[in-house]
């Protein structure tokens, strides 16, 4: 797994991509605290475990792939 940093809030996760559609993300800190998007939604009463995806983090992962920082195994 490779580290990827969120371009919006700086949250650092570990990522792996077997293919363009596959994504594995291991968070390295408490998601409800480390991520700006989750913090906002948790403040509104959401449970971070029940949020499917952080859009900003997803964009950052895609960016890392586009820039060759995160390798996709099967391309």
């Amino acid at each position: 797994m490779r580290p990827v940093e969120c371009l919006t809030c700086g949250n650092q996760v570990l990522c792996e991509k077997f293919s363009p559609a596959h994504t594995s993300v291991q968070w390295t800190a408490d998601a409800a605290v480390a991520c700006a998007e989750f913090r906002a939604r948790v403040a509104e009463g959401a449970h971070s475990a029940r949020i499917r995806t952080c859009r900003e983090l997803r964009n950052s992962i895609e960016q890392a792939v586009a820039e060759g920082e995160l390798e996709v195994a099967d391309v």
Partner: protein
Amino acid sequence: MTALNEEVRVIDAGRPPTRFARGWHCLGLARSFKDGQPHEIEAFGTRLVVFQGQDDGELHVLNAYCPHMGGNLAHGSVKGDAVACPFHDWRWSGNGRCTGIPYARRVPPRARTRSWLTLERNKQLFVWHDPEGKPPPDTVTIPEIPGVHGPKAGEWSDWTWKTLRVEGSNCREIVDNIVDMAHFFYVHYSFPEYFKNVFEGHIATQYMESSPRGDMDLGTLSAGGLRSDASYYGPSYMIDYLYSDIGGGTEMEIVLINCHYPIDENSFLLQYGAIVRQLPGMTREQAEEAAAQTAEGAAAGFEQDVEIWKNKTRIDNPLLTEEDGPVYQLRRWYEQFYVDTADVKDEMTRRFEFEIDTERANQAWRAEVAANLAQREAQREAQRAAAPGTGA
């Protein structure tokens, strides 16, 4: 031969855990315990008694065996807010204290049995199990389902409820299903087109979008597409919010509960039930009927799972492909419920996300189903040719 065998993958069956999971466990629909009788539950390697106090109206759970001479309280009767032992009529109240022994001058000072912490929610009864004997933290609870407790609960049917006793399997087998994308095609006859897992804290979620196989009739919840958003809250209670495409741009909303409690380390009681939201123009009876049908569909699905579990081995070292879900990470999450709270590691609870690439799998499966349908059609053609005049 020996050289070849050295290359063979050897299954590590491991051993079922020696303790039972910490967490809230659903014992069934609350109303099923409110008939004035004590009820016996075989769980956590022992027996429990569930009874409703006649005055307080509350459901109570105690160890079933009477500390006096071991009589089974579940075979006794409810007297006031206590359950009375059938052996010598010792009375035990919901808090575990002995409240009376009609033939004795005095109640012994240490006359106390184990009282289990209960929760009534979603019209279901839960008990808290913790080998360390600690109460649940505030963050660990069973959420209220809006279709039961929300402002629009009146639009929802009542629960259907079914139970299935599974022998010869540890309950980890059913928990593994959260990540098992491919079994939805082979065992439950659907195409899982989108599949993502999220594990965080005590919650494990499966997001799935699927459609039914055209070559099978059994086990699917609907004829059209299905969106499923299912979370385990702790080790054993899953709430599955289902949205079923029933045509004409209409989706039916269903909540399916899938829960279990361990009977012992090698058997468990699987329980499931559904509620359905009335669609516009749908009568209450039709919603109840839809819930019953959902439960029937789920029953067929679970029976297919059980058939697999009955005949498979426990496996601690599954051999996986990229299209299999994150089995090892799921089990790392599940492990948190089997260790002391002081030994729960960050890696068990830190957020982990896994989205499977389902494209290749679905290509292969679509081709397989198309071939099955073509073969069936060819057989029908052959039958027609062999018996001219009889075919339509």
